């Protein structure tokens, strides 16, 4: 097939070329302006944040040196003895890791329950009263914006040292985070089942129970699992402020320069986090698959 390419007159061509050049120049100006703003902000932030590249370059060797010093001593002839020496605290650390996982679990479950209750009050498609929606949303926002470790710091003073403040801090943060995500899911549901139940005289609770919950449950569980994964990381550092779990031992090991303990605990934390990531990802894929087949 032959197509004739239209030949523009010279004046029209020049006009188009000029317009193209202007567009390119405008884009280039925008990029330059953006870069200038970025560089200015970087310099300001560097000044504010006490960035000292010179001392950084002077001290940088300490990073590999630090990792070299926390690395366990291994030699081939005594590998087994070295390993058991490195992991000498394994029974204690495993128990503490178990505690950390339990803290994350209990916090996530409690938070998910509270989020589950609150999300329906925060959904504009289920609740008439704008005040209720507004207030619930602000409460959820407060819960998730204040970092959980700040809640933990305050709760340690109120409830005493131990896992309880950690669980509560994670629960509150989870309520805020999941409540918001849940509410977004609820606002996107199909409105026909709800209208059906309302039309046949169902109460508000019945509307929620039979109209909304069946549509959103698998999505909720998927979000809760993702949150559990995040909370395991959070629970690992709760011990920094005395709120239970493995973090306590880690911060002590770092502060007292028990070098090989640092690497052993870090390794255990990383392995646990990866394992949990792996398992919850599997579970979430299955859940999302279920949702696809149901639809």
């Amino acid at each position, binding site marked *: 097939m032959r197509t004739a390419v239209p030949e523009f007159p010279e004046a029209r061509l020049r006009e188009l070329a000029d317009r193209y050049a202007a567009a390119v120049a405008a884009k280039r100006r925008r990029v330059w302006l953006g870069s200038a703003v970025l560089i200015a*902000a970087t310099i300001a932030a560097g000044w504010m944040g006490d*960035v000292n590249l010179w001392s950084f370059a002077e001290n940088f060797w300490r990073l590999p040196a630090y990792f070299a010093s926390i690395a366990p001593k291994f030699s081939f002839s005594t590998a087994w003895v070295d390993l058991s020496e490195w992991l000498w605290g394994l029974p204690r650390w495993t128990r503490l890791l178990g505690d950390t996982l339990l803290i994350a679990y209990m916090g996530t479950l409690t938070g998910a329950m509270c989020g589950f209750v609150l999300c329906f009050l925060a959904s504009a498609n289920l609740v008439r009263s704008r005040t209720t929606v507004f207030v619930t949303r602000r409460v959820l926002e407060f819960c998730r914006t204040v*970092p959980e470790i700040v809640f933990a710091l305050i*709760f340690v003073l109120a409830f005493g040292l131990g896992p309880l403040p950690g669980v509560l801090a994670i629960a509150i943060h989870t309520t805020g985070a999941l409540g918001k995500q849940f509410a977004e899911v609820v606002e996107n549901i199909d409105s026909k089942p709800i209208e059906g139940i309302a039309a046949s005289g169902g109460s508000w609770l019945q509307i929620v129970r039979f109209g909304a919950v069946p549509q959103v449950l698998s999505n909720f569980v998927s979000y809760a699992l993702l949150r559990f994964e995040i909370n395991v990381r959070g629970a690992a550092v709760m011990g920094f*402020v005395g709120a239970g779990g493995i973090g306590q031992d880690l911060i002590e090991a770092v502060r007292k320069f028990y070098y090989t303990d640092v690497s052993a605990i870090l390794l255990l934390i990383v392995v646990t986090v990866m394992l949990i990531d792996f398992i919850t990802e599997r579970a979430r894929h299955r859940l999302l698959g279920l949702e696809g087949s149901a639809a």
Partner: protein
Amino acid sequence: MNSFSFENQAGIVERHPDIFRPDWWHRGKIAIGVGGAVALFLFGIVQLEIPFHRLSDGMVRLGGFVQLMLPPHPGSWAEVLKYLHALGETVSIAFLGTLGGALLALPVSLLAARNVVANRIVHFLTRRSLDTIRGVDILIWALIWVGIVGLGPFAGILAVICSDFGTFGKLFSEAIEAADKNPAEGVQSSGGNHLHSVRFGLLPQVFPILLSQVLYYFESNTRSATIIGIVGAGGIGLQLAEQIRVLEWQKVSFLILLILMTVSAIDWISGKLRFAIIGQRPIA
């Protein structure tokens, strides 16, 4: 028209027995799941030694703290200035940390993307190291950097860089793998080498997505940057932890308010920027 009265119910049940027969298998699975979850929760209460009287005592004490927090008050003007300076540090930590993490993660994410580097060993090793870096919480990174460069916001910046490096590396490489491969093939078919195809075929496609992710993480890093001061890495968290330790509750609530306002301001600004630069794109 049929009415759904009770006389009719028997007939309906008879005509559609499958719908009305309880599915014991399904119910059993749900019961086992719920029962297991509750049992684990109870086990946790026992294992973590959570007595109920401590819960109620604590609630009472917490109520007392909240009363002491009201109204929020910063103390003197000198202290307000100190807090504002700390706030500036926090925003700087978040900004430089996000920027540095993104700049470092860009080349590495190319290595971790299957459609750029075909070598499976490189791909695998890069992915696993990114996972390891991400598995270490930002507070732990802050702790390590405080040991290396000393107390102060610089340690915080480095901690955010490290933790973001792991996150961005993964997110970027996923965005790159999801990119359309036709432009890259086009560049190669017209004589470009592999680097050309990455530069002109791939990066222009994914750049807006990456930018959107970076802006999104700037918000979330502002939250993280507010707390890494707790282990001595600068910013407003340091002030907050100190005031909590000395039980200056009015200052604590003032600082919390300050943090809330900053985080929502950054949320707002970066949201605006995101829409202005790239329009409304989904994250990840």
